[in-house]
């Protein structure tokens, strides 16, 4: 059967993609950011996931205001890098896993998560920047990707609890897939940042680190953080962190932290990155 072997969270700031594409990842500004991903790139080479379920948000690239799906899953064969206004990033096409994606979509709908199905779309920096951070610049991405797009732009966005529960349902769906697959789930976006209005530039190192601590804990307290707390404490775009809860929800109660990295700033944003592995728990005797 397929198994979720790890969860990865990472910011997906577009400037990181620019740094990779222009070969600036080791300069004074970007060096400390990328150094925090060196461990993960080596780890991924050993782990060799077959598929990554990549939770991200589209930034007015594939979706405009005509259609705003809360949760959408990519069931297509492949996805091209989107032109976000300055030409598409020069990265390989993202190869989907339609069999697994449709299995997850169907299972989620039976599990009462009414997913939107996407068969064709381009993917923007929200999805391609994390791939670059974790895999560098290969000729082809080393694994298949199931894109899972979340509306974190138009309010109300899904609650933390709903995101966590979606993660739990994704795990059930993956574990009911007969093929023997090594599956990772990635939650992307965040951490604290505000890109709009006179309060733009807000960062909150203390809160971000508290959030990372909560993800490491053997409980699900983080699912109850209300939207207003993300907005007040982490800036208007910090709300992207609800997508990390989908990843965390898919890992079960207990996790082991294998890597953690935090850096301020990258452009307008606090960079956070964490790698967690699910810990199998012995069932207590009845």
């Amino acid at each position, binding site marked *: 059967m397929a198994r979720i072997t790890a969860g990865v969270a990472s910011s997906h700031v577009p400037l990181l993609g620019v740094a990779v594409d222009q070969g600036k990842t080791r300069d004074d500004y970007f060096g400390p950011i990328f150094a925090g991903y060196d461990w993960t790139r080596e780890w991924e080479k050993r782990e060799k996931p077959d598929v990554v379920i990549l939770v991200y948000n589209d930034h007015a690239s594939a979706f405009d205001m005509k259609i705003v799906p809360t949760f959408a899953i990519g069931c297509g064969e492949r996805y091209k890098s989107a032109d976000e206004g*300055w030409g598409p990033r020069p990265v390989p096409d993202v190869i989907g896993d339609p069999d697994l994606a449709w299995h997850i979509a169907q299972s989620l709908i039976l599990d009462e998560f009414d997913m939107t199905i996407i068969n064709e779309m381009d993917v923007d920096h929200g999805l391609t920047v994390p791939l670059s951070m974790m895999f560098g610049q290969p000729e082809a991405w080393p694994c298949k990707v199931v894109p899972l797009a979340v509306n974190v732009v138009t309010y109300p966005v899904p609650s933390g609890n709903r995101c966590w529960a979606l993660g739990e349902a994704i795990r059930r769906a993956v574990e009911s897939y007969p093929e023997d697959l090594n599956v990772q789930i990635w939650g992307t976006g965040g951490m604290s940042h505000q890109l709009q209005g006179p*309060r*733009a*530039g807000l*960062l909150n190192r203390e809160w971000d680190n508290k959030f990372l601590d909560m993800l490491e804990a053997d409980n699900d307290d983080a699912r109850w953080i209300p939207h207003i707390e993300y907005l007040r404490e982490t800036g208007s775009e910090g709300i992207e962190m609800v997508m990390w809860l989908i990843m965390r929800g898919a890992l079960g109660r207990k996790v082991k932290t294998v890597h953690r990295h935090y850096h301020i*700033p990258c*452009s307008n944003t606090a960079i956070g990155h964490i790698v967690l592995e699910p810990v199998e728990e012995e069932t207590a005797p009845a």
Partner: protein
Amino acid sequence: MTDARNLPRPTQNIHEYLAEFDDIPGTRVYTAARARKGYHINQFAMSLMKAENRERFKADEKAYLDEWDISDEGKAALLARDYNKLLDLGGNVYFLAKLFSTDGLSFAEAVSTMTEYTFPEYREMMLRGGRSPEGNRSIKANRAAAGAADSKGAH
């Protein structure tokens, strides 16, 4: 064993949920009301993802804007690149970003124009750790703190 945290919680009241957003200083949360108001501004911005539209817009901004169902106020704010005004009119930053890149502006530079800082000052603030959340969480709390300080000063 029942874990209280896992019991169903009452659905949050939408009016209370939305009212809290107005208490955040210097922030326009992209609510459904703003999304509706700014629909054509955002769809105009979206059109700039196509190279041929960018060229047409750059050649005659006013004429290009006249093709859209946008108020005169909205058109003026777009021509002036008055991003705070555009947020008030329902613009969203991820859509307006298409205009940043049409202008060849980095995200950070465009964002800095919405603040009290010049771009170099803004960049410096970010390098020093960003804008502090202290005093930036709640308009009501700031007013209460200012009120307390005033009454202290009066004695």
